[in-house]
């Protein structure tokens, strides 16, 4: 498989890229920092990825760079089977409420810039005749909840966008996989008290890879979240106002 990943230098992206590497896939890494990309590329080669693992600097916040970066990745690989987007910004609700600049940055990164990147990837895949676009959204986007109102709002928008893509382009060969992880223990969440059902990056990565291979439109990771969110979505408002979850 020929895979392009945005955000594979850390956290769940790193874990997912290592799973791809272990089965010998060809990989191109996109990310902000060229040095970090090179270090991760060596790591993936060490884990068994077809050498050389390509690197193309691409900042998610630099919208003009999206298209050229994907084109450069396609040049390296010949054709792209899968584009994976794990890059995102995370911040806790309290910090976002207090700091409007941080909030603006998060909303722009996780909603506007991510969707713009996905649009560039979608176009490329459709020109090729199809492929898989796998994007990390979050269970936070499934319902407005007190601890993740603002982060969840961005992710809700992203999830809706991905659902629409699936509806419109599935017939043309575009497979859209929306990954909805719960709380993941990464360096971005270090120091926070892990809520129930917290998972490790490797668990989420395994679930995501299964979803990519099968073309599952929505993947809860770990899978328990499907049932948790089913309950949460069906709770009446008066209950949601009371609980802290």
């Amino acid at each position, binding site marked *: 498989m020929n895979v392009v990943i945005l955000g594979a230098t850390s956290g769940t992206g790193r874990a997912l890229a290592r799973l791809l590497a272990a089965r010998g896939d060809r990989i191109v890494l996109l990310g902000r920092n060229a040095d970090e990309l090179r270090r991760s590329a060596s790591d993936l*080669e*060490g*884990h068994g990825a077809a050498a050389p693992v390509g690197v193309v600097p691409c900042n998610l916040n630099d919208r003009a760079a999206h298209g050229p970066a994907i084109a450069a990745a396609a040049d390296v690989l010949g054709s792209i089977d899968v584009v994976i987007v794990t890059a995102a910004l995370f911040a*806790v609700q309290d910090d976002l409420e207090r700091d409007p600049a941080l909030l603006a940055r998060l909303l722009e990164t996780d909603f506007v810039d991510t969707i713009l990147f996905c649009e560039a990837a979608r176009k490329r895949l459709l020109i090729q005749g199809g492929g898989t676009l796998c994007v990390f959204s979050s269970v936070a986007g499934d319902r407005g909840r007190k601890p993740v109102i603002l982060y969840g709002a961005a992710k809700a928008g992203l999830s809706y966008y991905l659902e629409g893509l699936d509806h419109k382009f599935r017939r043309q060969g575009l497979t859209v996989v929306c990954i909805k992880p719960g709380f993941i223990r990464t*360096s*971005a969440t*270090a*120091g926070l008290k892990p809520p129930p059902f917290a998972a490790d990056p490797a668990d989420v990565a395994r679930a995501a890879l299964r979803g990519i291979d099968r073309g599952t439109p929505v993947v809860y990771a770990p899978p328990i979240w499907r049932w948790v969110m089913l309950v949460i979505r069906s709770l009446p408002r008066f209950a949601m106002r009371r609980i802290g979850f």
Partner: protein
Amino acid sequence: MSHVEVLEQLAGWGCFPVVSGRELQSEDLRKACSRVNLCCGLRRSYGDAALPASPTDIVSNTVRADRVLRFDPATGVLRAEAGLSLRRLNAILLKQGWFVPVTPGTQNVTLGGMVAADVHGKNHHVAGCFGEHVRRLVMMTAEGAILECGPDLEPQLFWATVGGMGLTGHILEVEVTLERVEAPWIYQETERVESLEAMLAGLQAAAAEWPMTVGWIDCLAGAESLGRGILMKGRWATGADAPPAIAPLPTRPTRVPFVFPNFALATWNMRLFNSAYYLRHPEASRRGLVAWEKFFYPLDGLDLWNRVYGRRGFTQYQCVLPHSPAGSPMRGFVDLFVREGGTSFLSVIKDCGPEGHGLLSFPLPGVSLALDFPIDGDRTRRLVDRLNEYVIAHGGRIYLAKDAFTRAEHFRAMDRRVEAFLDVRRKWDPDGRIRSVQSVRIFGDSA
């Protein structure tokens, strides 16, 4: 990204002592280490070596910085970030026919930890410690400068860092030469030995023929049987012994599901377990192929086995006693241990080769013994004092990676190299920023 750092209860593998402190986990060690007082890895040091000296100190946990940065299959030279675990390293490189030249008894350790403790293994008598195979370290000094060192580059800093328990600077990257192996199997021979003396003789005899040797001894058996045990010898299987294409089935560790109550491990059942382990082995020696994981890491099959000791925690006392023309001082040591009321669940004996270059490297030519025992308040402290006095009298020393109790004056009496080590520390960390609970206890750092 802002890291919300909360006070956590931190402890080593022995669950004693427990201290409050802050731990930072980052994929970016260069950034993380610039503001911390100590680094830690997978926290397999038993005592207080990886614990913050005060609640305001921050420890950088390196486990997320675990990338392979370079591997050259022509030479076997590997460079990786310090948080790379031996488990991951083995998982990706053993199938390509490469293994670390020296491995401790668990693969739940990081490369950085292996350097900081200068770990040794069953092949110490031929391969020395891990640090002898390290070519380069990338370090961040206490003042935030990044530099490389190795046996031929800033050798003073390098050899102080090898075995230096993370006190000379933060280890960011490690470059080490791996060893080629033909097949992921070990050809092993085990034999039952009836006494401590026979064990010592057996280890010595086996050292000439086998690259890997270790003994397990029963320190709970009465009088004459005290010190009986099982002697294990091994070497990597060659193509002639094992079809190299067949890898052992991957194993999944069983996790000890909860912390056992303190009474779960009492002397009587420890005694029973030890006797059963001894008697289960037939009188005749056994030989054959065993999977590498089973040979090197028998305890890793039981994840979080430290919970068996309960909330009180436990300590491992490991010392090495030099050979003496008057016969091995080990018999006297074991007798003293039993006389002082010590009860060790698991006792591991190993003969060591020459002393390494690391300024605080543990092994010296002689015999090393590791004893596990539950913490029992001041009694444990007194027991360790008595054992240390014996070790000093016989020219031996203890292993800092295991220690939680040794007094500063005892440690200095054991190790003539301490001043040289402290000189290097003072040179690279004049303000004394880098410290641990252990360095406060042993080297008198301010707390």
